[in-house]
């Protein structure tokens, strides 16, 4: 189908640069993209009748990974071996 209306998961790997070009990178576009991503995640995992721990645990895991990435340079100094 047409490239513009497809979501990221439906875009094939070879078409990724073309899809990135058609993407909307203005502030409103980025904000809209963030809102759409959050609302789709929210409606799939949190806004349900019988949810479980999965909804927030994935958010917390993502936060852990992100904070580890931010403080990687500091943690690198406490390595056990010098050469890997």
């Amino acid at each position, binding site marked *: 189908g047409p490239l513009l209306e497809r979501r990221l998961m439906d875009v094939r790997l070879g078409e990724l640069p073309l899809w990135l070009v058609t993407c909307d990178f203005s502030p409103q576009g980025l904000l809209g993209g963030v809102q759409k991503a959050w609302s789709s995640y929210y409606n*799939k*995992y949190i806004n*349900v*009748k*019988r949810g*479980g*721990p999965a909804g927030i645990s994935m958010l917390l895991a993502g936060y852990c990974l992100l904070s580890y990435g931010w403080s990687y340079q500091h*943690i690198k100094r406490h*390595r*056990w071996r010098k050469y890997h």
Partner: protein
Amino acid sequence: VLHATRPVHTTQQRLAPLPPLPEKGGEVRHGLIPEEFFQFLYPKTGVTGPYMLGTGLLLYFLSKEIYVINHETVAAACILSVIIYGIKKFGADVAAFADKLNEEKVANALAVKNAAIKGLETAIEEEKKEQWRVEGRSFLFDAKRNNIAMLLETNYRERLMTVYNEVKKRLDYQVALQNLKRQKEQDHMIQWVEKNVVQSITPQQQKESITKCILDLKALSKSVQVAV
């Protein structure tokens, strides 16, 4: 003027009634990885593919010390174990409690809806009864018309009575007036006649009449004596 840029009911979606919430969220394995990832790798690597990938990544991070083991690792391990133990033990109870709260909310809303429907149905019944009552209006108006006719009749007769009484009073007055006049004339005439007669009796006539009376009495007494 309609702004053409605004979408005007172009989609099938409406705001009410809202579609019900989905029963369960997206499938997540081990609480962290969505099921779609396993399905994505299944055609190429089968069932054990993602686990192999996970193990390989973990060993790579550890061996290259991209993930460094330090005090935070120990803390994270303790915290994670406590969290997982808590979820496994109390998860079902908390879920049941939350479900009960939801049930109560839904039951309240449903009760309100049912009460509203019942109220409206009783209102419909009342309305039908009022419509049936309207048919009896003709009887009501006939009764009222009869009442008014009776009032008019009574009033008319009262006035006739008044008229009759008034006329009778006036005629009685005239009659009484005539009677009075005649009576007065009679009395006056009698008095005048008596007065003149008494006046005409001169003393001479009075003496003559008294001696005549005495003679008559004597004659009468003689006759009576004779009779006895």
